[in-house]
């Protein structure tokens, strides 16, 4: 009775609110209620169905909400406030509990599904996780929660009843997305950043396989040449898994956009049906489908559906044709741009920046979260057509910031739609790779791709400090050397710059909760700002850490030769990088030659040019690094 009233109330409110646009008569016209007084954007990104298929839960990153929809009607029933920047959602097998990961709070919100209709808008409790939780799944017994932590690079194993984190399992770098097998015996985890390896070597990634009975990692499926793995889906018969991924071609000069040699967008198919691990290209000869993100397999395994988040497309793949084609090829064909014609059934246009997907339990509908226009696309999986769009009630006032983010995530400006800003700056961060840009000559000035958080006051840009402003960095440079196709108009460039400058620093996980420093960090801070060495000798200004790395972002915005130039560099003089969240962005130095913070000084500072450090003991160097991690 109470639930019925709640639904009725929600429907009534919905009817009075923003109208929902439906493109097909197969869905009844329904309306979503915009949050009262809330003119902000929602940025829906992840979804999950209740076990009975009645409710669709939608995570909205921007508004810190979980939306609850009546899936059949396409109506928003409830908007539940969760933690900061939610990134993942899972439902308990009995449907009674909803779990939402809050990536900026390092928590999971636990929501009592029974109370959803009663206008209770808060989570019942929160559970602590590792750093920056993303994907989440529940085991089949409904007792254990698995959470992928992007910053701590691991998977939290949590006892749901007590909320206690029992253990952390090492996963790939930037662990982010999870899927549990149909029989519940395995959890699979993907990660967005490649493993830190030797400089200028082929990127390495893995699918981490967890045995749920032992709660231990039992296998790591290696993926060579892959950097940037997103969602993973498993077939209901347990014979096939699929991962959406990127293949960066960062070991050759970035001069071959027209030849397709910047990014490949593909799937990894693994399991018994694949007979191992197969990488399957999804691009075409003259058009690319960038940043594969969400993926689903039809219950009968006939189709694989995957979002190209930079291309606003859902690609539908005929599984039988795919496997037959793959088995007919003797050699890897992931770089064969003609291959996809053999197994792609359809390319379905959806909204802006399609990310997560959820397939209805009967397999007839695929819901797609269009992150940049606050809608869901509904796809009929039989006809392979978009049959409706659900407006989730986000702001219709498209601000410059929002336009900038849309520009950041779309690949339509690059030649043949090959990539967007977001390919290299995954979720507006970095990619953990070095690139060889063309303007300085092939094989010259091989540079690390830097984090783009909190950039205001860190100008100039580029490692050589060659771009004095963000407009120059993102405008002519991008047009000429990256996209080689279409330039941003001045208003567009202004929007993009505004968006990039708006990116805040993520919460620093190395400071104490009260903001104080630990004893080791305090000792390290004293070393960072010292002006005399341990022998009482004055350290020249340019060799003091705090001189070059000065100011609120820890950059003097000046250029120095710190002795790290290589034969590949046209000049050994480099811009002083900001140190915001420096702990997250290994490898280090302009060319990623230092695999860790330690190596900056133990390997690449023999003459004290990069700070006076050679008088330090190992303990003291450790202290310095502990301090740097707090910046």
């Amino acid at each position: 009775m109470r639930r019925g009233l709640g639904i009725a109330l929600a429907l009534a409110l919905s009817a009075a609110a923003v109208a929902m646009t439906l493109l097909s008569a197969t869905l009844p016209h329904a309306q979503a209620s915009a949050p009262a007084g809330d003119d902000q954007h929602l940025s829906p990104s992840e979804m999950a169905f209740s076990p009975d298929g009645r409710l669709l839960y939608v995570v909205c990153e921007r508004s810190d909400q979980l939306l609850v929809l009546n899936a059949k009607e396409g109506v928003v029933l409830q908007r539940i406030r969760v933690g900061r920047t939610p990134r993942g959602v899972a439902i308990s097998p009995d449907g009674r509990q909803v779990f939402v990961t809050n990536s900026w709070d390092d928590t999971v919100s636990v929501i009592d599904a029974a109370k959803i209709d009663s206008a209770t808008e808060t989570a019942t409790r929160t559970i602590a996780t590792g750093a920056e939780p993303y994907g989440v799944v529940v085991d089949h017994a409904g007792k254990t929660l698995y959470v992928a932590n992007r910053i701590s690079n691991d998977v939290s194993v949590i006892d749901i009843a007590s909320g206690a984190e029992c253990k952390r399992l090492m996963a790939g770098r930037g662990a982010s997305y999870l899927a549990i097998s149909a029989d519940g015996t395995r959890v699979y985890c993907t990660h967005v950043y490649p493993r830190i390896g030797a400089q200028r070597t082929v990127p390495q990634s893995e699918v981490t396989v967890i045995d749920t009975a032992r709660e231990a990692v039992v296998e790591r499926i290696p993926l060579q040449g892959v950097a940037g793995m997103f969602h993973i889906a498993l077939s209901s018969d347990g014979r096939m898994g699929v991962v959406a991924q990127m293949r960066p071609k960062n070991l050759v000069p970035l001069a071959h956009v027209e030849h397709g040699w910047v990014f490949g967008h593909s799937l990894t198919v693994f399991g018994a049906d694949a007979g191992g691990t197969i990488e399957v290209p999804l691009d075409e000869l003259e058009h690319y489908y960038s940043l594969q993100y969400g993926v689903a397999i039809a219950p009968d395994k006939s189709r694989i559906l995957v979002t190209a988040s930079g291309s606003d497309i859902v690609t539908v793949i005929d599984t039988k044709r795919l496997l037959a084609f793959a088995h007919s090829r003797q050699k890897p064909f992931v770089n064969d741009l003609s291959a996809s014609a053999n197994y792609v059934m359809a390319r379905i246009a959806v909204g802006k920046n399609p990310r997560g997907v959820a397939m209805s339990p009967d397999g007839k509908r695929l819901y797609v979260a269009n992150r940049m226009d606050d809608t869901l696309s509904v796809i009929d999986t039989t006809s392979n057509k978009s049959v409706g769009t659900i407006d989730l009630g986000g702001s219709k006032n498209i601000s410059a910031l929002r336009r900038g983010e849309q520009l950041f995530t779309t690949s339509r400006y690059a030649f043949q739609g090959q990539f967007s800003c977001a390919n290299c700056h995954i979720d507006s961060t970095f990619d953990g790779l070095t690139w060889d840009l063309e303007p300085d000559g092939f094989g010259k000035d091989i540079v690390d791709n830097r984090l783009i958080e909190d950039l205001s006051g860190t100008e100039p840009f580029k490692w050589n400090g060659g771009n004095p402003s963000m407009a120059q960095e993102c405008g002519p440079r991008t047009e000429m050397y990256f996209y080689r196709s279409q330039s941003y108009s001045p208003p567009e460039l202004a929007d993009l710059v505004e968006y990039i400058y708006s990116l805040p620093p993520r919460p620093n996980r190395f400071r104490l909760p009260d903001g104080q420093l630990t004893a080791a960090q305090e000792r390290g801070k004293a070393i960072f700002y010292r002006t005399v060495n341990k022998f009482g000798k004055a350290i020249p200004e340019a060799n003091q850490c705090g001189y070059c790395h000065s100011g609120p972002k820890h950059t003097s915005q000046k250029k120095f030769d710190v002795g790290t130039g290589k034969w590949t560099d046209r000049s050994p003089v480099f811009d002083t990088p900001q140190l915001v969240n420096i702990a997250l962005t290994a490898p280090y130095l302009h060319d990623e030659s230092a695999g860790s913070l330690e190596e900056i000084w133990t390997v690449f500072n023999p003459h004290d040019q990069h700070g006076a450090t050679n008088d330090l003991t190992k303990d003291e160097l450790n202290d310095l690094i502990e301090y740097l991690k707090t910046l």
Partner: protein
Amino acid sequence: MKLRIWIALLFATLPLAAVKPAAVANAADTVTTSMPRFRWENFTTANGLPDNHVFAVLVDGDRVWAGTENGLALLEAGKWKVFTPKDGLAHRAVLSLAIDKSTGDLWVGTMGGLNHISAGRIDTYTQLNSGLSNDVVYGVGVQGDFVWTATAAGASRLNTRTGEWSLYNERNTPMAEIWTYAVSTGADKVYYAVWGSGVLEYTIATGRWKDYTDPDGDNELVLFKDQGLIHKITSSVSYVDNTLWAATYFGDSRYDGRSWHNFLTKDSGLPSNFTNQVKGLDATRAWFCTDKGLAYYDGVNWAVYRPALDTGKPEMYVRDANGKITPVPVETAPAHNYMLGIDFQDDDVWVATGKGLSHGIRQK
């Protein structure tokens, strides 16, 4: 009435008196038969080991890891798999092994750094790429989220959740020498064998260190037996049941938090005072890996397993509480009498020796 009782008691005890010698003999037999017997199977380069110098052994369920001078070997389903620097191992010489029972991950101390092996993935920590104090990692132990290492330049602790390294040496502990040789972790304490500096105890609750050294100081004579650690040249520690077992090159010690008890060849069943590793089973029982054989102590009696020092033939003997030594006929022996490490697989033992890895299969 009282007389009758005495007479009755006299007659009742006569049979006992009559059989006393036989009972003593039976007691000796009982001691002999109560000590574990093994059929030994030995692994060398001839049947899959990468090297016969085996420094460490670790049992993980049905799997057995062996750290050798030329790689890390894994025995699984009857087959050996070998990991070398080509596979990502920090150094070919593997000195120490520890398992994280929570995750199943393996930590490997080598002559060139520390490895973390998880489901086939190998990560390396060295003194150059991490906060590890020194690349020579003699000992490694896991305690919750922390990995403790004993290195040639002090102790290191890695917080696996934050990545923070904490170093412990002469500057922040009572460690006169920084040559740490072994580490043993417990829920409340961590112990280090410091070669030349005795035993260091770290109390987890307080974060404080305490040292235990030989009360005889540098005097090589044992002037005060059972007054403290037998010698400061410590090679191994084992913390179990709130009891510390410590091995030195000059005898072994047990400390229960209040009292010390020391073991020397002259008054125990130790085959040698030169002990490379001690591993306690509980507060009373322990295994000793010496340069003259493997010894088991059940709290009262001793058993020694080795190829005979003179003939090389399989040898086992039992020493009872009275010091009586009884040979036990055996047909097999460990690969060599120079023992470096031991671990347990149900009732079986696995022993690292100077000339191969030995599997002691318990005989009922």
